[in-house]
């Protein structure tokens, strides 16, 4: 573009900034906070500049940088974004400052905390821009390590075990992913996503795999499926899908609020991004072979997580399951577009609708879930760590502003029209109904269950007689309102004028669907 390698700069800003912050003395708390916030806002500004310069007519990868690195291994440094990557960059850049502000009151080892958050942001940016498996995987793992320490060192009473489980679980997934890609590399000599996607599209990848690794009975189909399963596991754990999700509720519940916001707002999108950027383009055939079991997995994820959320008694755990539920709709959408439907124009339209919906839902979920966790964090801080569903009651009387604003976020999560949650879900359902009818119809039950548990939160926490323990609970301060209002405003804007995002991602969607019409 204009010569400046914007994407590299974007990744380096938090990475180098984190190194600076980590060097600060433990008593320089104010400096660490403000400097880190400034860096994350700088990254946000840079992302907005990218958003502005992005050519939304074209669905191609833009801002590309390509430098040879280890040519003998097929490794090069290659970054670039299309509408999907850009949207994820924007989401990360929005969520990170929010998470920092939510962590403002942390008093222990402040520079380390904020440095880790910055490293995590660098990991996110790297993951969403990298186009070569080699450094993509480095960033993928880089984001994991700060998250582990953030949970373990600043988390609740059970944080150590939650962090360990989170780390090991995700690590298993990553190892499976790594092995899968090594197998692919052995057969094809390629690490580049777009080149591999080309092979996946014209079907040469499967045959290359069986030629390169075929062994006794283990030829084409089972072998390809095993490699697919490895890559799938890596992403499924990260999203997560049921039954690969058991790390999530404890991790979300034990992590400090700011970290939970990062986990749900940005990191859970890494899995979805992986499905869209890596799995679906490279393994279209494999996905098609086992589409029905995968659809069951999506339906189970949606219904079980919503039902389990209904049975939880800890607000953070309710929201954690709700998070799984919302990403379940994205997964359903991805499966709908992975279906082979032939070249019909009607199915291309349906697929474009679904994919737009999936992108939007990813963004919306990140925004809404992060905001909701912020609110729960506020309750928790005021109550001194209490956050049970039944521990409150009648909070509307003493904290009307808090309840009103959190109510907006809750209704956004419920999918109320006029707020952001609705459009994404509508587009997914609209397209998926035409493509995978039965699974979509079953998934609609999830929407009802979501309403039940969200209204239960409203009933138990906000309504009813005021619980005498909390009569002194203060309402949101002006400063807190300023923190949360931009997020809520964004919810309204996206709900009323979704074209603002769709206009940027639509060309990418059309391109993706066109490239993979089967």
């Amino acid at each position, binding site marked *: 573009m204009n010569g400046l390698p914007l994407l590299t700069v974007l990744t380096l800003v938090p990475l180098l900034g984190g190194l600076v912050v980590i060097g600060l003395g433990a008593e320089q708390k104010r400096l660490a906070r403000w400097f880190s916030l400034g860096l994350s806002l700088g990254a946000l500004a840079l992302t907005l500049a990218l958003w502005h310069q992005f050519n939304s007519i074209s669905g191609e990868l833009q801002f590309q940088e390509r430098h040879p690195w280890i040519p003998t291994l097929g490794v090069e440094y290659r970054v670039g974004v299309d509408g999907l990557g850009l949207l994820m960059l924007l989401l990360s850049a929005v969520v990170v400052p929010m998470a920092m502000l939510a962590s403002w009151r942390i008093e222990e080892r402040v520079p380390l905390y904020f440095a880790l958050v910055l490293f995590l942001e660098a990991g996110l940016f790297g993951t969403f821009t990298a186009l070569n498996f080699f450094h993509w995987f480095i960033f993928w793992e880089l984001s994991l390590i700060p998250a582990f320490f953030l949970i373990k060192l600043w988390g609740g009473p059970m944080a150590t075990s939650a962090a360990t*489980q989170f780390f090991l679980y995700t690590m298993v997934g990553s190892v499976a992913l790594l092995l899968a890609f090594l197998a692919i590399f052995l057969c094809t000599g390629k690490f580049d996503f777009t080149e591999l996607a080309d092979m996946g599209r014209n079907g040469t990848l499967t045959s290359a795999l069986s030629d390169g690794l075929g062994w006794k009975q283990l030829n084409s189909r089972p072998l390809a499926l095993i490699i697919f399963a490895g890559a799938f596991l890596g992403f499924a754990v990260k999203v997560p899908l*049921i*039954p690969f999700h*058991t*790390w999530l*509720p404890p991790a979300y519940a034990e992590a400090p609020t700011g970290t939970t916001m990062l986990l749900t707002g940005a990191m859970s999108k890494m899995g979805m991004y992986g499905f869209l950027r890596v799995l679906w383009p490279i393994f279209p055939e494999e996905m098609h072979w086992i589409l029905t079991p995968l659809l069951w997995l999506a339906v189970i994820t949606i219904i*079980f997580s919503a*039902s*389990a959320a*209904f*049975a939880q008694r800890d607000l953070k755990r309710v929201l954690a399951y709700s998070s799984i539920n919302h990403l379940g709709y994205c997964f359903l959408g991805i499966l709908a577009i992975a279906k082979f439907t032939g070249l019909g*124009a*009607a199915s*291309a*339209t*349906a697929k*474009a*609708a679904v994919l*737009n*919906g999936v992108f939007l839902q990813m963004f919306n979920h990140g925004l809404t879930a992060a905001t909701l966790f912020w609110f729960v964090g506020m309750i928790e801080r005021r109550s001194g760590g209490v956050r049970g569903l039944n521990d409150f009651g*009648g909070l*509307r*009387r003493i904290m009307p502003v808090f309840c009103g604003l959190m109510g907006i976020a809750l*209704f956004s999560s419920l999918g*109320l*029209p*006029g707020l952001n949650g*609705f*459009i994404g879900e*509508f*587009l997914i*359902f*609209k*397209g998926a*109904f035409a493509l995978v009818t039965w699974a*979509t*119809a079953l998934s*609609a*039950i999830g*929407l*009802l*269950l979501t*309403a*039940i548990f969200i*209204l239960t939160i409203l*009933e138990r926490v*906000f*309504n*009813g*007689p*005021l619980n005498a323990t909390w009569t002194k609970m203060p309402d949101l301060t002006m400063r807190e309102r300023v923190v949360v209002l931009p997020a809520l405003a964004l919810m309204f804007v996206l709900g009323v*004028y*979704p*074209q603002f995002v*769709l*206009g940027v991602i*639509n060309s990418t*969607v*059309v391109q993706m669907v*066109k490239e993979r019409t089967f």
Partner: protein
Amino acid sequence: MDWIVQQLWLIPVVPLVAAAVSALLKQRQRRLSASLAVGSMILALALSCAALINAVVHSGTGSTARQVVNFFWFQAGDPQVTGTALRLGWILDPLSAVMLVMVSLVGLLIFIYSLGYMAHDENFTRFFCFLSLFASAMFGLVIANSLLLLFMCWEIVGLTSYLLIGFWYHKPSAAAAAKKALITTRVGDLALLLGMVWLYSKTGTLLFYDGGHGCLEHSALATLAVQTTSLGLAVSTGIGLLIFCGAIGKSGQVPLHVWLPDAMEGPTPVSALIHAATMVAAGVFLVARVYPLMAAQPGGVASTPGALQVVTWVGAITAIFAASIAVAQTDIKRILAYSTVSQLGFMMLGLGAGGVAVGMFHLITHAFFKALLFLGAGSVIHGCRDEQDIRQMGGLRKLMPVTFATYAVGMLALSGFPLIFSGFWSKEEILHSAHVWTAPAPFYLGVVAALLSAFYMTRQVCYVFFGSVRSSRHEAAHISNSSIPNKSEPPHVGCYEAHESPWVMTIPLLVLAAFSVLLGFLGTPAWPWFQGFLGGERAAGDLGKLFEGDVLRLMVLSSAVVFVGLGLGWWLYGRKPVRSADEPDVLEPLQPEVFALLKRKYFVDEIYEASVIRFSAWWAQVCACLDDWLWNGVVQLLSLLVVGLAWLNRYFDEYVVNSGFDAGCRRLSNGGVLMSRLQCGRVQRYLRLFGVALTVLVLLLIWGCGAP
């Protein structure tokens, strides 16, 4: 195109702005908030009247009677392919014009009434904010020319209903009722959503009318009617039924009616506006809006379409089911709530059997007289200091004359008192169309429900307004008060000190009463202007129509039914008024079991409690347990396996590898010690050892060599 059509969007936006501004106001800025709300409604009413005039001018002129404005909302898919741009729009046709005027007029009156009714409420500002938001969404629903836009407004209307039912959120019953209302209606809404996406995927548009390309226009309907699903159902019928499920939820039809009576936990103006006149009628409006889809038939088939049959039957069953429950209720608002459910059933029956005009006429007349009844009930409740039990009232005729007079008008209109009151004409029309419908049963159900309506309204009026003032609670309070003189709580005065309500509350009552009478004359068989307007043709006045055999016979029959109902009610409750509040109902001794069944509302709530709610709670627990034990169990098992392996490894290391190595070392060092003992440095010992060794060696040699 006319200015009003272009600017129709102002009607929902004006109250929306009022709502947004009053959301930001402080609690104490009561006057500003209320004036914003009322002002926005006046503006909306003026615009609605302009819209109605426009629609009347254009009516009867064929396709121009339907004026639409569509606009682009967002693009999802290849711009070069048609049907990827999502467009919304608004429509001005007789149906939306009539609804607009009804909603804005009733809404305005209820807003004014609320000024008095809610005057002492601490959340007055918030109340008007929610009401304005409701009005905005309702207007949006009415003018929507896209099923998607309609659905969005439909959901927001549901939200405001939730907020207003739970307006007194500190009451657990109100909070629970609000939740129940939203969840129950959402069951229907999900079916509606599926119907909508199905329709979208089949026709590629959700615009109702779009110059020949809309989903309710001929080309789309013709394709939908001939396609069949795997079950043999026409696609149009399947979609129609799913959409109707949404209407069942919103309009409180059986079996999703359970939320509506509970919704009476909200303030009475809310019950009047949302849960009687406008929102609950949205389901009926929806069916009227998508009527072409429901009625779609492949060419040449003459039978009644399946979707409309379902509508008719559901309506008829709801009408009688709810009317029979109303007979045994004692809460003044719940009687009206069941009456609303029953009347909504009538509307559905009219839609299914007679068409849009028949159902819509009853919707409009009902909106006025039911709003009147609710506001009258509110006035009674206000006068009696929040007493809602009709057994505790009585004799209010003299204490609240204006309320009584207007209530009586509303009651007669609802009962369908012949010739004068609007309810008669609209209900008569429904019965007429049910009479000529394919199956006879809905007609008879409707007749019995009409009889019951007259009966329960008479019962209620007798209880509330006739006889003498009675209040057992008052007496109880009186006794306890005299025994404990220093009780700080003021005595429960009940209806003894009932007073007429202030003019802000009575004037809306008078206006509504006037409309409850006059509206009927717009749709008599002699001059069916309303029906003609909705049907797109000019109606001619012809008094002779009233005396045609069929029409006359039905009029006589329905008059007879009404008189029987009124007479029976008067005979049982009015002839000798109830004296004491604890006296059992007159009907109770006659059939105690049946009365109990009705009083307990056929145990529907209990059945749902025992089945659906228990099941979902159980299912949630199962899911949570699966999570804790199965999924987590597998993970834990795996991790235990790994840990076990690690232990095994450690033991092997420590006891096999390590101890073997240690033992070897120890032996080596022992050997060293042993050896070192030999190196003691004493020459004598060396020599002794030497000597012994030499001897042994020599002996061995000798022995060994001699052996072979």
